[in-house]
């Protein structure tokens, strides 16, 4: 239904070789334009007239890594409450003004980032109304006392509910043990007792410090001209609070001194298991190598080693996987699964030996070929919609990746060898120094003994 189809009604044969065009593809359709606004915000823009849609986001370093243990949850609450009253509009005014033009505004929030994402129809009338709301929410959030009190109560009750679930427990315990005193140990949503103490002034202060234009990233994708995009970026960042010029950074996450295994009692029918340690930064030179390697280990769905060993061969779990979560500082490397509680020990042994064998021997050349075939052949699907490209723009901008990141993606994957993967995993994942958390054990137990003994 794209309007492009009327422009190039060429006859295409279905048997054209898939990978030939991939390298040119990114270049051809993704000329990323990049500039700074008058207030210093970085802008990333791709013009695309295929659909009458505009996607816009503004992100700042305001994720939960900027929380303190005493005020864990402050960053999340600040991000969540901006849209509940701003620039003379109350929360219903904001919701209605967006709904009336069919616009969708959502929050972006993780360990590193806090931001807002807007999707709107691109015709000027609707677009302008939606952008005006977004600009107001970004630049003049009210954080009214009574709203803060109401939302605190809602957040606390949701946290208490989450605290009972095995998946929430395993996550919380894992991050605490893997990151210790580093802020990545803090749950992004905060804790019931810390959130309960937050005040409107805390949110205002956090907002003023973090939602400043100097480190803001604006990503714009879709049906506007460069000139219009420039005006939009100005509109959204012009009135952000002036920063004191201090650059917000997250300290580096230290490596684990030794293995730790923690068993947590829980009556659920399944044990929830997480194994891992601090992994890599988003700008790590090993990124692509580990990306390909992890596809083989546990990232490639049905064809990964962990899924093969745990699910396909033994029927031990519905889902079993591994991933790197690269962040501003070293984010976690994680292996996760859920299995019936009486077979948790068996599943754990299978996963540990799978990991150790992978680290000891590395992938086979055939596995590397297959992984690269999938990732390279699947590249067009990474950028086949406005939304996906928009997500890339925001990520490239926030993590300071090169503007030709997408154009060079395929070449960066192609370069990876089996030897590189083995070496990179040896550098980044030490099987003798991993955190293991099992929630759904018979009774609580913590062992500092190296988990790696079992293989």
């Amino acid at each position, binding site marked *: *239904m794209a309007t*492009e*189809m009327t422009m190039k009604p060429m*006859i*295409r044969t*279905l048997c*054209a*070789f*898939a*990978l030939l065009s991939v390298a040119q593809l990114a270049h051809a*359709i993704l000329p990323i334009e990049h500039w700074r606004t008058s207030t210093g915000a970085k802008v990333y823009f791709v013009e695309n007239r*295929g659909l009458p*849609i505009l996607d816009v986001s503004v992100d700042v370093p305001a994720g939960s890594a900027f929380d303190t243990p005493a005020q864990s949850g402050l960053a999340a609450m600040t991000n969540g409450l901006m849209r509940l009253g701003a620039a003379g509009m109350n*929360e*219903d005014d904001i919701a*209605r003004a*967006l*709904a*009336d*033009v*069919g616009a969708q505004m959502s929050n972006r929030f993780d360990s590193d980032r806090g931001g807002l994402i807007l999707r709107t*129809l691109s015709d000027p009338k609707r677009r302008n109304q939606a952008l005006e709301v977004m600009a107001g929410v970004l630049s003049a959030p009210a954080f009214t006392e009574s709203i803060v009190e*109401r939302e605190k*109560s*809602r957040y606390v*009750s*949701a946290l208490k*509910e989450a605290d*009972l679930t*095995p998946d929430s427990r395993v996550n919380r315990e894992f991050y605490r043990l893997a990151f210790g005193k580093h802020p990545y140990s803090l749950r992004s949503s905060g804790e019931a007792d810390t959130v309960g103490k937050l005040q409107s002034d805390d949110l205002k202060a956090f907002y003023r410090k973090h939602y400043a234009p100097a480190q803001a990233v604006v990503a714009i994708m879709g049906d506007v001209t460069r000139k219009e995009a420039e005006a939009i970026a100005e509109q959204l960042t012009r009135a952000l609070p002036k920063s004191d010029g201090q650059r917000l950074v997250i300290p580096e996450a230290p490596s684990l001194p030794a293995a730790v295994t923690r068993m947590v009692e829980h*009556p*659920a*029918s*399944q044990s929830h298991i997480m194994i891992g340690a601090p992994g890599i930064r988003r700008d790590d030179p090993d990124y692509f190598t580990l990306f390909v390697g992890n596809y083989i280990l546990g990232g*490639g*769905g*049905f064809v990964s080693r962990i899924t093969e060993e745990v699910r*396909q*061969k033994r*029927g*031990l*779990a*519905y889902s079993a996987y591994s991933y790197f979560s690269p962040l501003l500082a070293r984010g976690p490397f994680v292996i996760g699964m*859920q*299995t*019936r509680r*009486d*077979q948790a020990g068996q599943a754990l042994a299978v996963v540990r030996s799978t990991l150790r064998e992978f680290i000891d021997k590395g992938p086979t050349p055939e596995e590397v070929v297959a992984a690269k075939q999938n*990732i*390279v*052949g*699947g*590249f*067009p*699907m990474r*950028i*086949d*919609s*406005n*939304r996906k490209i928009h997500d890339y723009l925001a990520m490239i901008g926030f993590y300071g990746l090169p503007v030709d990141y997408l154009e060079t993606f395929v070449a960066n994957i192609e370069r990876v060898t089996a030897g590189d993967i083995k070496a990179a995993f040896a550098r980044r994942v030490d099987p003798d120094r991993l955190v293991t958390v099992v929630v759904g054990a018979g009774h609580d137990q913590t062992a500092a003994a190296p988990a790696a003994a079992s293989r």
Partner: protein
Amino acid sequence: MTALPKILFVLMLTCAGLPVASAANAPADDVAVKDLANGLRVIVKPDRRAPVVASMVWYRIGSVDEQGGITGVAHVLEHMMFKGTKAVPAGEFSRLIAAAGGRENAFTSRDYTGYFQTLHKSALPLSFRLEADRMVNLVLSPEEFAKEIKVVMEERRWRTDDRPQSVMYERLMATALTAHPYRNPVIGWMNDLENLTIEDTRRFYEQWYSPNNAIVVVVGDVVPAEVFALAEQHFGLIPSKTLPLRKPQDEPPQLGLKRLTVKVPAEQAQVLMAYRTPRLTKPKEEWEPYALDMLESVLSGNAAARLPQRLVKTDRLAAAAGASYEGVGRGPGFFYLSGTPAQGKTAAEMEQGLRREVQRVIEEGVTQQELERVKAQAIAGQVYQRDSMFFQARQMGWLEAVGLSYRDENLFIEKLQQVTPEQVREVARKYLVDDGLTVAYLDPQPLSTAPARTAPPAGIRHGN
């Protein structure tokens, strides 16, 4: 995957098919359809924004077609469809798709089972070859079945047994319905899974998997005539089957309010209310389903809609509250109201609050402005949907699989635009009544005193 048993998700499907107003942009206009001689319907929608295709095969077969004692078999069969044919041994399907750069999975719902790949357009022949092969040549080995049934039981534990809201929804449906198979969970009851055999699964496959019970949907950078030729080449020679007679299994009228309590380890109480309603069967003639769809959005279609605005923000009675209309499908329709009481409030107070909002609609009606807002969101939503080939394919396949037409997408928005405030009030008055209502309370239990759901010793199985 089974379809998510989350009520709020269900409605998303129900109202998602609302196209843009402009006739020139109507999404079904450039769709091409061909029925092969063996009954296979092929639907193709060109979208040339990227050299990619979403390729799907839908079977008009879901948990609604299961008999007692074998609940879950449709979904187990979906898992087994990845376990090999003579030509493509177990695991090979996924390896071939992966090697072509593709992504794949499958989903099972009450009404249908679907398989999909997203691929570079040059790999469409591979998709068709593999799908045609497993439509007719599935091996179903006992060894693979023995492992996969364990995986499905893990899926059930993960998806339902350890999730309070899923358990509540499952028990609500089993209470609300007496005869119709929608009362059974898509994933199946645990005891049925424990006793399911490979013969049950094979019988289901042999009865229901055939080209005349399937729909192929392709969205992407393709030429319809070429896709039809490719479909003919791969699927054309598969013989059609005489399908078993589908009995209606109509639900008898409800004879009064039903209530149930679900005691599970949890922190918060929850309330889930299900009203029996009509479903959409004749999209041109009917108006009530559209009015119910409107009512759902007026109640919870945006952050300033009635339930969040009044119950969460103004009254501070709820931590969350929502409405959801499930009106497209082969079985009975339902209109759901759900609420989580705010701290210090009870489930009974929550129920009263939800009922108060229903009463307000019945007594005071809704405003034209509220309806306009819903329409604006629906129109925009239809445009946004065009950003995803996968979603476009899913939308068309879904409508066909439940017995409607992909073309009805165009009709939906026209009919929605015609709904009046009085009609919304009328359906509320007619259907949101106690005699067709089932109310579930989730009664939270502390973890420590929860019945110990310890696992059985290896080799011995029992339900929980």
